[in-house]
């Protein structure tokens, strides 16, 4: 089994706004290994969401190849894509997108519905996943009775439901306050660390991006820069301020005491 979970070659996506063709992605190539935690950054209109949609089998590329866990999705017909989304993808959205009339557990069960026949099995797994994201005991709460951070945790549990090859997160912290933002990014980093879940996250928040392994900067539909992130949860790293070594899980540098989460700078290794 290859370590490469996603292989994108010469991907181009052209939209038509009226008669005007708009190139959202131009000749983009990217390789993602299993277990990577990647941040895609860039100004609005740079093509980050389009890229995420193509990877997530929500949009079809105009040209190029997208190899996802051994499947060539660029050639898969529209009416088969839902199956790939169901089997290989987990989505996390900026506004959580929970179904308001279902409780936390039912929301997590949703993707399993056509995959796991047994209702009790679904329930059991949903409860497990909710406890992984730290929501044990809140299974029966409806979204409006959960905080925003908690709602996003439910959404993360839902994304994990079918043990996807890749979790795609579109601005997962965009709607959260700094406290919740920190907790969600820690949760994602932890899942990546402990479960080896591949995560591709679109964000324009450098604080968040800093905690991934790899940061891609998109501009005009192309990857213009690639940097290594700190990923404090996963690896021992060095403080970007004083170059002292940071232990796994540290939120502040133990030497210069600067908060590693509070900066808007992108750290360049």
């Amino acid at each position, binding site marked *: 089994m290859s370590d490469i979970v996603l292989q994108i070659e010469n991907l181009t996506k052209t939209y038509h706004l009226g008669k005007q063709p708009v190139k959202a992605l131009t000749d983009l190539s990217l390789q993602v290994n299993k277990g990577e935690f990647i941040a895609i950054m860039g100004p609005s209109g740079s093509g980050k*969401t389009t890229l*995420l*949609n193509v990877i*997530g089998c*929500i*949009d079809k590329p105009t040209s190029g190849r997208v190899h996802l866990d051994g499947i060539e999705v660029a050639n898969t017909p529209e*009416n088969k894509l*839902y*199956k790939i*989304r*169901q*089997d290989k*993808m*987990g*989505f996390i*959205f*900026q*506004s959580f*997108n929970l*179904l*308001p*009339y*279902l409780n936390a557990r039912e929301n997590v*069960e*949703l*993707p399993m*519905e*056509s995959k796991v026949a047994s209702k009790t099995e679904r329930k059991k797994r949903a409860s497990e996943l909710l406890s992984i994201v730290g929501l044990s005991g809140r299974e029966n709460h409806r979204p409006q009775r959960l905080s925003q951070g908690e709602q996003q945790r439910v959404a993360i549990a*839902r*994304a994990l439901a*079918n043990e996807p090859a890749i979790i795609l997160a*579109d*601005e997962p912290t*965009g709607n959260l306050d700094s406290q919740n933002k920190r907790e969600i990014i820690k949760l994602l980093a932890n899942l990546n660390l402990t479960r080896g879940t591949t995560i591709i996250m679109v964000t324009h928040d450098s604080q968040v991006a800093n905690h991934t392994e790899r940061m891609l900067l998109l501009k005009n539909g192309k990857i213009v820069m690639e940097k290594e992130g700190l990923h404090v949860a996963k690896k021992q790293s060095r403080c970007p301020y004083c170059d002292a070594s940071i232990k796994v899980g540290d939120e502040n540098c133990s030497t210069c005491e600067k908060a590693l989460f509070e900066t808007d700078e992108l750290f360049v290794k």
Partner: protein
Amino acid sequence: MGLVNRAVKNISRRKIRAALVIIALSISLSIMISIPAGLMANQETTNALTNNLSSTITDTSESISQALSQIDVTLSSRFAGFGFRQESSSSAGSPSGQMPPTGQGSDRYGGFGGGDIAGQFGGMSQAGTPMNASLYADINSIKNVATVAAVLEVSEGSKNQTLSMMGQSFSMQITDYIIKGVPLTSELINSYNVLPSNIVKGRNLQSGETGVVLLSQNNSAFFNAGVGDIVSILNVDFTVVGIYEPTSFSDNLVLYMSLLDAQTITDNTDYITSLRVFTTSSNTVDLVVEDIRTLHPEVTVTTGQERLNQLEFMQSRYDETLESAQASLASTQATAIQEIIVVVAATSLIVLFVMLYTVRERTKEIGTLKAIGFSNRTVMAQFILEGLLLSLIAGIVGVVIASFAAPTLSSLLLPSVSSSFGLAAGGGAGGSAVAAVSTVSLNVELVVAALGGAMVLGILGTLYPAWRAAKIRPAEAMRYE
């Protein structure tokens, strides 16, 4: 299953909207139930009317065939009956000198005759000038006479009223009832139609009975008496043995008793007002009439011809009534079909628009479902199920509404057959042919059909919105407002 669970939850999410849709749908459905229910009731009414009229026509036909061999013999009365039978006077075609001794000019307005028609107008001081019973023997001995029924008919009324007519003034009573005494012999009762045949309650008079009376429905109402009750007629008590439904106008006020009783209570011992002569066959009527006129020139002889005319007239009215009822039923059916089409269209549109709105409102949610791996089919099924559930609930509510509002709704929506036949029958058959109006009611088949119809409408109205939902792109989930 998750789909059903979600459909229920989705419906209960927007309670007011769901309630409004259910109300609108259930009203439509109750209309859809009420129309066929009303139609069925109209059908039943028409069928009942048809049966009733058919049997009346049969009865009438029998009466006609019997009437052909009947002759009524009366002494011309001073006042008896006006207007109806001017031509029926025995003297109409006879040479002068045939006027009865009591005649004072008004006799040309007709002998009373105990006929079917004159009874209604017999509101005069006396039903006729009594003739001596010995006349009976003379006529009974005429050749070709099968039998003779001696009849005493006396009108009883209360209020006096003065009537001016053709330059003359008459003191007139409003008739309350007409006493008709007929000989209660088994031969007359069984073989000749001296008694009414249409018994609706109790029984008919029997041979040799006395002290008993058979009332018409009108009499029953007038005396406020039913079968088994005692009624006082001219201060003599009689037991009501039965109530009959008159088959003609003229019978409406007539109560039947034995001839002897009638003679006794009216102080007319040995007197009769008319003889009903039954000839051996209709062919011998003319001969018998001739003989009676020769033998007793002073009496009025009426053949069955007038009766026949009247009966034929009635029969034609029955036919018209039947035709008009059937035509009215046909037009009611056409109206019903149109209304059902309108209601079906309206109901489908309600479901369509509400579901379209719901789909629009839930675009993001549907996008999310598709992003996390729901197939188009599942999304579509979800919406169809929702529409189906909504219409099923509405269907049940509709049945409940219809179960008590169906008569009102159908009478509002459908031209009633009963009203049209009521008019026709009232004019023609004197109410005797008025069938009981069938009431609008629901049956199991109708309820099942309505629920089935509701579900079909639910599916029809949801099909397009559900298809629209299935076509929503999963990228809609990414949209952030």
